């Protein structure tokens, strides 16, 4: 009896803890949501409201009208997809090399790659990078917003760390079987790395989706701009007070990333049926 109640109490405590924490994490987003469907008079009311008075979806329609929002979301989608693909491919290959091979210059080159994280690219490199893009005639193109970002030290490091945890015996067994390194990578390592691949996909997609400064500089026409630029166009610090529309735009822009997470969440979380029921 005692053990049962202890379990119930534990579960309850955990539930409460998680609820409080979730409120802390989600509250600002919830606020954004409320503001987006609120009628404009109440956005800045005192006392501040948590739940909206009535539902007004006009903000969403307005947000889509002020700028070609859907087109810009499409641009972001394409760009984020290819950046993610690029980063994963280059990151997996390089991570695998560093995890499973010892070769001349491995520490040095790894250091070089890693040190790129120490360059504040978004602030410092915009102008020189734009010159390169311009010489390649890539101004206002998808390539300009994708290709420079298809390598990532974070990915290399992540995959290297993970691949190191895969037991050596697997590799030896594969080698005995006559598998090439590429085959070993594709047939053994990757299937074992689903959680990390899922996580990396989400990280890379989110990073690409939330990029602002570079797309702002590179895109020269509205039809090539991205979703974060769209939000900024609606926001305009100078004199927009319509937070309802701004938040509606933010909500729309938030949606794909949340959706991706929701879908991929199972990849790196074993199904709850499998956990703890053994024995």
């Amino acid at each position, binding site marked *: 009896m005692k053990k049962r109640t202890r379990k119930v109490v534990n579960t309850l405590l955990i539930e409460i803890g998680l609820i409080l924490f979730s409120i802390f994490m989600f509250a600002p987003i919830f606020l954004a949501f409320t503001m987006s469907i609120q009628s404009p008079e109440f956005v800045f009311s005192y006392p501040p409201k948590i739940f909206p008075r009535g539902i007004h979806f006009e903000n969403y329609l307005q947000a889509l009208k002020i700028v070609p929002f859907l087109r810009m979301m499409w641009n972001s989608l394409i760009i984020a997809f290819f950046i993610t693909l690029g980063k994963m491919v280059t990151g997996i290959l390089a991570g695998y090399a560093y995890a499973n091979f010892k070769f001349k210059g491995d520490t040095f080159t790894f250091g070089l790659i890693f040190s790129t994280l120490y360059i504040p690219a978004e602030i410092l490199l*915009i102008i020189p990078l734009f010159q390169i893009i311009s010489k390649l005639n890539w*101004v206002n193109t998808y390539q300009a917003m994708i290709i420079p970002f298809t390598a990532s030290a974070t990915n290399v490091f992540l995959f290297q760390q993970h691949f190191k945890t895969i037991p050596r015996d697997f590799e030896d067994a594969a080698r005995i079987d006559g598998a090439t390194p590429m085959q070993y990578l594709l047939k053994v390592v990757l299937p074992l790395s689903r959680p990390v691949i899922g996580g990396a996909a989400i990280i890379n997609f989110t990073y690409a989706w939330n990029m602002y400064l570079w797309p*702002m500089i590179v895109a020269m*026409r509205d039809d090539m701009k991205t979703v974060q630029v769209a939000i*900024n*166009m609606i926001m*305009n610090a*100078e*004199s927009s007070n319509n937070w309802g529309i701004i938040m509606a735009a933010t909500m729309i822009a938030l949606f794909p990333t949340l959706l991706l997470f929701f879908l991929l969440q199972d990849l790196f979380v074993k199904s709850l049926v499998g956990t703890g029921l053994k024995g």
Partner: protein
Amino acid sequence: MKKILVLMFAILVVLSFAEVKIQFWHAMGGWRIELIQGMVNDFMKANPNIKVEVQYVGSYEEILAKTVAALQAGTPPHVVQLNEISTKKMIDSGVIVPVEDMIKKDPSFDKKKLLPQVLNYYSIGGKLYSMPWNSSTPLLFYNKTMFKQAGLDPNKPPRTFSEVISYSRKLVKKDDKGNMIRTGITWPLYAWFFEQWMAEQNKLLVDNNNGRTGNPTKVMFNNEAGLKIFEFWNTLTKEGLMINTKKGDWTAARQLFISQTVGMIITSTSDVALLLSESKKQGFEIGAAYIPIPDGVQRAGVIIGGGSLWLIKQKNQAEVEAAWKLVKYLADVDPQIAWHKGTGYFPVRLDAKEKLEKEGYYKDNPLHYVAIKQLLDTIPSYATMGAVVGVFPEIRNAIDNAVEKMINGQLTPKQALEEAEREANKAIKQYF
């Protein structure tokens, strides 16, 4: 021989009708994007061989960054809108075509038609460098309904610093726990307002006549005039009569006024329409007045803010000519009137203002009338013309930082003024 001449003539005719493509970058977001596109479309209808690509880029800083990037890559835009404080940078840059040069070749544009205060701001040594386009000044707005409630005369807005203080005292309201739920005044924490009060006292911001008769070498605001301003700001804050925002937060200040958390706000004239519509929604009446000034001071006037349009040098001179046509158009009477009505920025020309007056516009729009009167009543002097200095953003940042430290109790007004001066002078020395 004749055939060749005819051919050459034909080619010239064709070339003169060849389409010229130009790029126009601006920083006016929200509903103004459409407004500007409409104006540009009208321009293109009247000039079928000019194609304008309009782009809302973002803030003024982002336009500057993008322009720098584009310039270094060899594909600069043709017309850019930049804020007034970028003037010296642009003049020194070597990449612009001064508007004056275009006017000399094109007598159809009479710069004397521009409002003198606006013309003066963007001219140095009598030479106009950029085309004024979206000009504004500060204005005091106040909640008439709240004034009545608090026992203040809604037709007598405060005119001096001490009146602001005493009015604010009457507006303070606290809840049962002693928390402040309403107070006197607010304005965005921005050095622009400091500069305005220096101008009202007819004092310079930087030396060499505000940078207009020579490159500035140091700031000139560490004096009694500057101290009056800092002490006013400090007193209001310390007594809880004012709410301060973070640096440059115009939205927060407006929000405080609209939600009736404060009874008075000093903000830009370009906010008139917004404050009118929002106050209506919230159910209170607003009034406008000249900004309050230090006691015992002779009102000298205000400095314009906002931005102007710059022409960038191009390899193809035909593109510059086309860009000039666009700029001329945007500064013309009817476009200026439409621009004013749609945004609240001043019409930059006297004839536009007169046309509005004839229409009875100012009778229907008393707040706009106060705004333009304050501008036209400004006595032209180097002080009210505003400063021209390359490191203007850093000077403003120095002043903003000093104010923030002062209102946090880290510095006294005098110390704050000195620190602002120190940092600002450092920045001026490093200008390259």
